[in-house]
C-alpha cells in the first residue's frame, strides 16, 4: 500500500494577517509558513507509523503550490516521508487542488490518500471529499483513528453527537483530525536525510476555475470589555439579559 499525504502550506497561527493589492490578495511578506497542523500532526505522522509497522510501502507528500513552499515540504521530509511531489501552481480553490491530487494518485497507484481535517488558512474542509467524489472512492471524514489490515481499513470518525467505527476497503480518502497520532519533532538525522530526498516538480494539469476570491477584509474586533465587580454576579446577569439580550 502506498500512501499519499496532501499537505498545505499555511501561515503560522500566531501570524498577523494582512492583505495587499486593494485587499484582493493575502500579503505573504514577513509571514512564517508552516505545514497545516492537521496535515502534519495527524495525517503525516499516522502515515509514517503505518510505514514503520510495515503496513505501507511508501509515504509521499503531495503539495500544490509555488517554489516558496519548499521549506514546508522539506520539513515533512525531515519528519520521515520518503519523497514529495509539488504541483507548480498557486491553488485557486479546493476543487483545483482536489483535481491535481486525484489525477496524480490514480496515475501513480496510491491507494490511501490522506488529507487534513481543514486548512487553518481557508478553513474549507473540502479537498478530501472532493478527491473522493472525483475518483468515486469512499471518503471517511474527521477520522480520529485508523488501522490497516491488508486492504481493509478500520477507522473511527466523529459524527453528530458522538463517533462511529467504520470499515472500508482500499482505495480510500480520509480527512484526519485530532486523536489519530501525536505530533513529532524532526530529529537531526531526519533533517540531514531530507536534504537529499527528491521533490518532484510537476506542472499543473489544466483545471477548472469554479470559484475565485474577490476581496478580503479583517474581522472587526470587539469594543472594549466591560468589567463587573467579582462580588456582583447579579449585575452580570442583568447585563446579559437587558443589554446583550442573550439570556
Amino acid at each position, binding site marked *: 500500500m502506498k500512501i499519499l499525504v496532501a499537505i498545505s502550506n499555511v501561515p503560522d*497561527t500566531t501570524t498577523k*494577517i494582512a*492583505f495587499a493589492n486593494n485587499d484582493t490578495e493575502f500579503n505573504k511578506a514577513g509571514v512564517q509558513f508552516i505545514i497545516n497542523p*492537521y496535515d502534519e500532526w495527524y495525517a503525516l505522522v499516522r502515515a509514517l507509523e503505518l510505514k514503520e509497522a510495515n503496513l505501507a510501502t511508501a509515504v509521499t507528500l503531495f503539495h500544490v503550490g509555488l517554489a516558496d513552499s519548499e521549506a514546508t515540504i522539506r520539513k515533512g521530509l525531515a519528519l520521515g516521508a520518503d519523497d514529495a511531489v509539488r504541483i507548480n501552481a498557486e491553488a485557486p*480553490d*479546493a*476543487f483545483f487542488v*482536489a483535481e491535481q491530487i486525484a489525477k496524480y494518485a490514480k496515475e501513480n497507484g496510491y491507494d490511501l490518500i490522506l488529507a487534513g481535517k481543514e486548512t*487553518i*488558512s*481557508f*478553513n*474549507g*474542509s*473540502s*479537498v*478530501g*471529499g*472532493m*478527491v*473522493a*467524489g472525483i475518483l468515486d*472512492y*469512499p*471518503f*471517511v471524514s*474527521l477520522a480520529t483513528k485508523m488501522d490497516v489490515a491488508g486492504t481493509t481499513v*478500520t477507522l473511527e470518525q466523529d*459524527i*453528530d*453527537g*458522538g463517533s*462511529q*467505527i*467504520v470499515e472500508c*476497503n482500499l482505495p480510500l480518502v480520509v480527512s484526519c483530525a*485530532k*486523536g489519530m497520532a501525536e505530533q513529532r519533532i524532526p530529529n537531526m538525522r531526519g533533517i540531514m536525510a531530507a536534504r537529499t530526498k527528491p521533490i518532484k516538480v510537476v506542472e499543473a494539469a489544466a483545471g477548472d*476555475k*469554479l*470559484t*475565485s*476570491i*474577490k476581496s*478580503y477584509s*479583517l474581522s472587526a474586533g470587539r*469594543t472594549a470589555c*466591560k*468589567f*463587573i*465587580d*467579582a462580588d456582583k*454576579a*447579579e449585575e452580570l*446577569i442583568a447585563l*446579559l*439579559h437587558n443589554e*446583550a439580550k*442573550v*439570556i
Partner: protein
Amino acid sequence: MSVLIYTEISKGRVKKASLEAVNYGTKIAELLGTSATAIVYNADAAQLEEIGHAGAKKILSVKGNADSISQSVAIEQAAKAESAKVIIFSHDINGKAVAPRVAAKLKAGLVAGAVDYPTINGNGLDVKKNVFSGKATAVYTIHSDVKVISLLPNSFPVTTSANTATVSDFAPDLSGITAKITVKEVKSNAGGGNIPLPEAELVVSAGRGMKGPENWGMVEELAKILGATTACSRPVADMHWRPHHEHVGQTGIAIRPNLYIAIGISGAIQHLAGVNGSKTIVVINTDKEAPFFKSADYGIIGDAFTVLPKLIEAVKKFKANAN
C-alpha cells in the same frame, strides 16, 4: 430552476442548522426568482411541516439508509431532477462529508462556511466566508453554473411562517454506488448537555484555571441552570479532564453561540480561533492581563472558585423571577 436544500433530522427534530439552511435557501430562491426545495431522509409528518414553515415550497422525502455516500448520490440526482442552480448545506459534521463530494460530482463551485447572504455577480454569486480561522473574511465569487454553499451554523436567524410545502417521495437510484463504508459501531457522547456544541446558543467553557477535573461540578451546574452546553480548552481535553468532543478552538470545533462564558481560560489565539465568532463573550479570570479580556464583552477579574457559586446563585434568582 430551483434552490435545493439538504436538511437533516437529529434526535427526533429537524436540526436547527437545517432550518437555518432552509431559511437561507428560501432567501436565495427569492433573489433568483425561483422556489426552494428541501430534501430530507426519514422525516415524519411533523418534521416535514416544520421544514415547510421554514420556507421550503417543496420537500423531497427519502426513505432508507442515510450514509454519506447514499446521501451524496440522492442529492446529486435530486439536483438534476429539480434543475437546481444552487444547493445549500450546513457546514457541520455531516455537511463536511457530503457537500464536497456532491460539489465535485457536479463540478460545482463550493463556498464552505458562508456567513452572509449571497449577492448576484453576473452569472455568478458572491458569498462571504470566514478565513484564517476567523481573523478575516473573504468574498468568493462562484463561477460555475451549479453553485454549492454550506452555511456556518448559528450564523443566520431562523424565522418561520405559516408556509406549507408539498411533499413528494423521492427514491434515488443507488445501483451505481461502488464506494462503500460499513458502519461497525456507533458511540454516543455522554453528558455535555443535550444540545450538540456546534448548535448550542449558550456555552459555558472552562480551562486549566479550574485546576482539575474534580472541580467541574460548578461549571456543569452553571451550564445546567442556564440551559447551556459545556466546552473546554485544549489542554483540558488533552489531560483527559474532559472528553475531547468538548474541545473548542482551532484544532477542536469552531462554535459561534450567542453567549460564550470562558472560565479560567487564558485566551490563546488558537482558542480564540474557535470561539471569536460568538455574539457575546464573558471572561472570568484571576489575571487581569489575561489576553482573553481583549476579546471579551464582559469580564470579571476574580477567582472562579468564589465567582462561580455567586454566579450560579444569581442565575437561579434570575430564572426564578423570570418564571
